[in-house]
């Protein structure tokens, strides 16, 4: 049989329509249903992690007040909060959620190329979440080793949760990585193989570029975490000594010899630093599309943006030891890793300039997604700039392991990506559900989240300058700290509780929209990219009806001169209108 290009194989798909409720909504192989399953699960665990952070803040703001927070509990909350937020919320939501939903729709494909594996990916992810949450209920409770799980402490009796908690944590990570790999191979293959006719790589929306690159990073980085989890599991269960030197633990000799705790840190951060960009690159991509659409203007410097995503992705693999300047590794590494780390600031800064320049001479509609996108630029500038302190090896000496670090990474990979997550949910909500959200509730949600989080994290940097260490259950009498440091901590806690509480507005909006939201227009934002051009809203199984779309231009033909509408969808033929950047740049 002659080879038929995937873009031309449209008729085959129609025989695979799901027939029953179970195959349609539970064991579904439809990327859109899987995306919603991924997204809902991730947001569910995210809420748990949010509650954990509120408990931590209660203790830090008002120490010795709440008898349900012991030092053991506190370290368990810290650990689970961090791990859930980074892996089980952000990674799963950006790639499993948005990646799943957007890739086939934005590249003009009927589904992922391996739908069955895509379905397995979600169910295995759910299993990893169940294993993780189960660790709260085993003897000794969840692990309190900190999300970095540094040995020897993570598996030695001085830390909470070394009976079963750490074993379940490592097992859950292993299962998660299996799930991610099945999903990730799908995303990469779909982008490379299943784009519709005319969708060249350099015509893809930046959302897809960000998700695509992040997935590649994940496929290369997660194996490092997997091997370190397996090795630590062996150290814990059958007393191998991969990461364990000879030690004397609480007066006893546990019987280890010859291993290296620093080896674990290298493996962990070889995964851990790219992980930052696994979260950040999809956010970069998505925010570019939100800005462009709602400013009715092409993204500024598209090609530069694509190359910056690729450059950042590549560089992210040679900066990992900037997390380890004061770890006791060979100090001469500091020269190399400080240099690479500060170099990565250049492509990152270019992205920021281009976002801001996209607003310049635009026609800015301050709808809810746009508010979140602009809020993101502000918080990301802040978080990015404080990274220049910590990445510069010398400044890491006073600031490492202090609240400056906590404030920095929450600004850059907590608040910033979450603002994009919300912006993206509001942006694509009409397409996903076919209904509009409540604009007023959405705006309140933005303002309280944006201002509230800044009130948490701006002052927190100054606790770090002062020398307040992270991961302290209580400061007690520390002679170099003024009493006002505790007052500041109390104020930060109040802001944190406020922000946590206002997330109810988001859920209220979801319920409002699903019950009484007005029916959405198929393309309410007059956007150019393909997902807004589907024949049905929400798109049906197979996405495109009988014929696959054909792409004739890039995704950013907004306000093209000489054309009446201020947008030209990607699938509008070139002879109907001026054809964007491929031909029309030198106007």
């Amino acid at each position, binding site marked *: 049989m002659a080879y038929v290009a995937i873009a031309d194989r449209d008729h085959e798909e129609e025989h695979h329509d799901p027939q029953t409720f179970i195959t349609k909504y539970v064991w579904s192989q439809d990327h859109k249903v899987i995306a919603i399953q991924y997204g809902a699960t991730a947001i569910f665990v995210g809420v748990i992690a949010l509650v954990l952070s509120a408990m931590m803040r209660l203790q830090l703001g008002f120490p010795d007040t709440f*008898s349900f927070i012991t030092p053991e509990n506190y370290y368990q909350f810290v650990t689970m909060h961090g791990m859930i937020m980074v892996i089980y919320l952000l990674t799963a939501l950006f790639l499993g959620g948005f990646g799943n939903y957007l890739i086939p729709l934005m590249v003009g494909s009927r589904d992922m190329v391996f739908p069955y594996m895509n379905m397995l990916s979600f169910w295995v992810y759910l299993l990893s979440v169940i294993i993780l949450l189960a660790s709260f209920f085993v003897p000794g409770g969840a692990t309190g080793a900190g999300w970095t799980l540094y040995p*020897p402490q993570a598996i030695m009796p001085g830390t909470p949760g070394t009976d079963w908690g750490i074993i379940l944590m490592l097992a859950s990570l292993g299962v998660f990585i299996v799930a991610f790999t099945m999903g990730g191979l799908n995303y990469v293959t779909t982008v490379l193989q299943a784009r519709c006719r005319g969708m060249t790589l350099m015509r893809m929306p930046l959302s897809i570029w960000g998700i695509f690159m992040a997935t590649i990073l994940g496929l290369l980085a997660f194996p490092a975490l997997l091997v370190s989890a397996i090795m630590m599991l062996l150290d814990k269960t059958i007393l191998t000594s991969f990461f364990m030197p000879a030690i004397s633990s609480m007066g006893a000799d546990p019987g280890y010899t010859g291993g290296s705790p620093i080896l674990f840190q290298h493996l962990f951060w070889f995964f851990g630093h790219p992980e930052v960009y696994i979260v950040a690159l999809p956010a970069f991509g998505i925010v570019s599309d939100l800005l462009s659409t709602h400013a009715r*203007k092409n993204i500024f410097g598209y090609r530069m943006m694509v190359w910056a995503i690729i450059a950042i992705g590549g560089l992210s693999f040679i900066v990992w030891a900037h997390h380890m300047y004061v770890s006791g590794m060979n100090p001469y590494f500091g020269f190399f890793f400080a240099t690479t780390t500060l170099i990565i600031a250049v492509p990152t800064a270019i992205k920021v300039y281009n976002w801001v320049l996209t607003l310049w001479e635009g026609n800015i509609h301050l709808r809810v997604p746009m508010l979140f996108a602009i809020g993101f630029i502000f918080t990301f500038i802040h978080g990015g700039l404080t990274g220049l302190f910590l990445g510069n090896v010398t400044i890491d000496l006073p600031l490492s392991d202090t609240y400056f670090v906590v404030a920095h990474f929450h600004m850059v990979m907590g608040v910033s990506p979450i603002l994009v997550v919300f912006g993206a949910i509001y942006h694509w909500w009409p397409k996903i559900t076919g209904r509009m959200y409540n604009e007023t509730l959405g705006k309140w949600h933005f303002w309280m989240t944006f201002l509230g989080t800044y009130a948490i994290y701006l002052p927190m940097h100054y606790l770090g*300058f002062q020398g307040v260490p992270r991961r302290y259950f209580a400061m*007690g009498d520390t002679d170099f700290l003024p009493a006002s440091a505790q007052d500041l901590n109390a104020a930060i806690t109040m802001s944190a509780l406020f922000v946590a509480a206002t997330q109810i507005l988001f859920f209220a909006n979801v319920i409002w929209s699903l019950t009484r939201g007005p029916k959405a227009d198929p393309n309410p934002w007059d956007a150019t990219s393909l997902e807004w051009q589907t024949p049905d809203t929400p798109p049906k199984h197979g996405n495109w009806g009988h014929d696959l779309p054909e792409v004739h231009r890039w995704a950013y033909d907004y306000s093209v001169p000489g054309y009446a509408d201020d947008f030209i969808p990607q699938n509008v033929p070139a002879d109907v209108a001026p054809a964007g950047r491929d031909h029309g740049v030198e106007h």
Partner: protein
Amino acid sequence: MPLAVVLVLLVVGSIVFHLLSPWTFTDLASNWGMVDFTVDITLYVTGFVFVAVNLFMAYSVIKFRHKKGARSTYEPENKKLETWLTALTAVGVAAMLTPGLFVWAKFVEVPEEAHVVEAIGQQWHWTFRYPGDDGKFGEVDAERISGDNPFGMDPDDPNGQDDVLVYGAEAHIPVDKPVKFLLRSKDVLHNFTVAQFRVKMDLVPGMQTFLWLTPTKTGRFEVLCEEHCGMAHYTMRGAVVVDELDDYTAWLDEWPTYAELNATPAGDAVAGAAQYAVCASCHGQQGEGVAALNAPKIAGQDAWYLKRQLLNYQNGSRGTHEDDVYGRQMVPMSMTLANEGAIDNVVAHIQTFPDTKPASTIEGDVANGERLYAVCAYCHGKNGEGIQAMNAPRTASMTDWYIERQLQNFKDGIRGSHLKDYYGFQMRFMANTLHDEQAIKDLVAYINTL
């Protein structure tokens, strides 16, 4: 419009907060002013970018907000502008990186004239070792660590014989002399940080790490562990005391060398009997404790703990708080023991007493007590047996009213507030996890069941 105004206000507010914040770097007490200088340069460069980009964004949001009939300008790229911005950013990055690498080069090269102090971390204490007159440390080995040899010294290594072993959380160093801290951990990762010195480094079991500095101010500076090391990480405190040279030498001379420690004879229980006569009048003939005289049971208590408390009474780190009524009575009693040998003897004598469980006098919610005891068990043992390596005494089968009173004393700062009572200082943190009198009673009721 509100968005643009808020963006401007946030920029202005951030600057005002920065300028007015009372929370800033502690006063520098070392040679590492260059670190602060690098921080300053970075603050200026990043501060400029923060203000410029955000104000530009706010201006754009105002000027180009949607108006009826407005249209964007179609401008996919501007090569010249992009090149300029890239080049300027690169210059800014270089301006920050260059001093950073320059200072780091100084940090990794320790001056040859630096003297060496070893800081040893364990869950959750600091101890220190000085190399002695020969300037060389003896070999140590984690597998040799025991109650009698907490440093894990090699008894056959001639270099180790004159090593000065400081079993306490305070190290002294002379002012204006460069010092290299060699860092070693017995168990898990720790981190040696003195905020006023600006430098820090992890302690890694199985290897030695280091940092160096020249202290420029005399005084007592707190050492914090800043690498998560388990449940009581936040209580792992110590101090570096920067002295004038003479004071430093005098302090160091007070500590024994390894050879001197080994030459100390064990306590003589028979000789201790005579000295115990004084103790017996309150603590009872068999050390069983007499509640009416507020004297706890001491029979069956760990010898190293009894010795430490007697020394604490003698050196003023216990029994000097004005509200410590019964502790103050112990001070003159402890003074009847003329020297360390006498203490060893009387402690040896106490070890010969029969150990019988005293009657319980405190009732409480045992189940709640068991929950609360989970934290205590890390150091005092699951069965309250006491763990010498954790510097935590036995709690099981001791007088319950005494434990209750001491927990209250720790909570109130009556005990453990003296700077030299390192382990009492930690107990204050732990006692603070018991929020009221009932919690203490519940806990003690549970300990009675052990």
